[in-house]
């Protein structure tokens, strides 16, 4: 069982997964774009500007999901000292930062035709900017610190501190009066989004998840090669 999680097996699995994602990615991207830009209907209030949702919402979800995983693995790594979690987090953080930035930028572009402004220091927008800074600080610990123990310690502190911001982002639209609309899709409770818009959104989410997985696997593979290169020097 534990042999399955050896670096060699993980490396071989990564190779296969990268090939698999590469083989299906463009087909799903094409389907997603056709749904998002052509087949999905315009909103009765926002018109065609609602199509920005198909890149904005998946970006925000992945940005939040990455930080949640990073926090969980940081805590587990801090307690159980599982080296793999360190490499997973190191590979995951830049992806989370990318999608958080994309959520902020596309949200800002969507804000102009909808709210009449590119930016407002609204609770949801501000908390997303705070998340972006947590990602930057988190990545900086890997860049600036040299000792692995120190990196684990400081990155875990940043991840745990940043995790306090996650429920603030989620509930900011309910706790405060914000320009940002409340959630249309709810895991518990009734969603207010029509199925004609939900389907393209889910397909675009799949596209973004596949892309995130591809980048993560490439980064993780780079980490494994780096370790193997170090090991050659030791031999």
């Amino acid at each position: 069982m534990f042999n399955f999680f050896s670096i060699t097996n993980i490396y071989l699995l990564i190779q296969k997964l990268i090939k698999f994602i590469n083989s299906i990615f463009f087909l799903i991207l094409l389907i997603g774009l056709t749904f998002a830009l052509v087949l999905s209907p315009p909103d009765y209030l926002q018109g065609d500007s609602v199509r920005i949702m198909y890149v904005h919402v998946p970006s925000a979800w992945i940005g939040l999901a990455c930080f949640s995983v990073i926090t969980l693995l940081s805590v587990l790594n801090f307690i159980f000292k599982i080296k793999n979690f360190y490499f997973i987090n190191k590979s995951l953080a830049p992806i989370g930062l990318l999608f958080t930035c994309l959520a902020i930028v596309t949200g800002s572009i969507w804000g102009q035709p909808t709210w009449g402004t590119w930016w407002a220091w609204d609770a949801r927008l501000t908390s997303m900017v705070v998340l972006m800074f947590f990602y930057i600080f988190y990545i900086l610990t890997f860049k600036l610190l040299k000792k692995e123990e120190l990196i684990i310690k400081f990155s875990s502190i940043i991840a745990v501190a940043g995790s306090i911001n996650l429920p603030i982002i989620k509930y900011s639209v309910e706790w405060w009066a914000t320009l940002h609309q409340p959630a249309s899709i709810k895991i518990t409770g009734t969603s207010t989004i029509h199925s004609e818009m939900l389907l393209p959104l889910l397909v675009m989410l799949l596209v973004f998840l596949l892309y995130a997985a591809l980048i993560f696997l490439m980064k993780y593979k780079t980490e494994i090669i780096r370790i193997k290169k170090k090991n050659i020097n030791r031999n």
Partner: protein
Amino acid sequence: MILNFITMNGYGFYVWLSFSVVFISCAFVYFKTKKTLKKYEHEFLVELQTLTLEEKNKVLENSKVAQQIIATSFKTN
């Protein structure tokens, strides 16, 4: 109809700008990540070349990852 698709009833600038920002950023990150991966693969091979034949064989015998990196570099070159 095509003009309507491009202008998106007056929202075309915002919609196309959003999609462009996302796809350009994603493409940039993809190519940068791929370049870094190739760079490390290359550095690994260079490091392997510095070893004696005996040491090299020992590394290749013990490491499937090393075998895979060499196989991949042969495929791409």
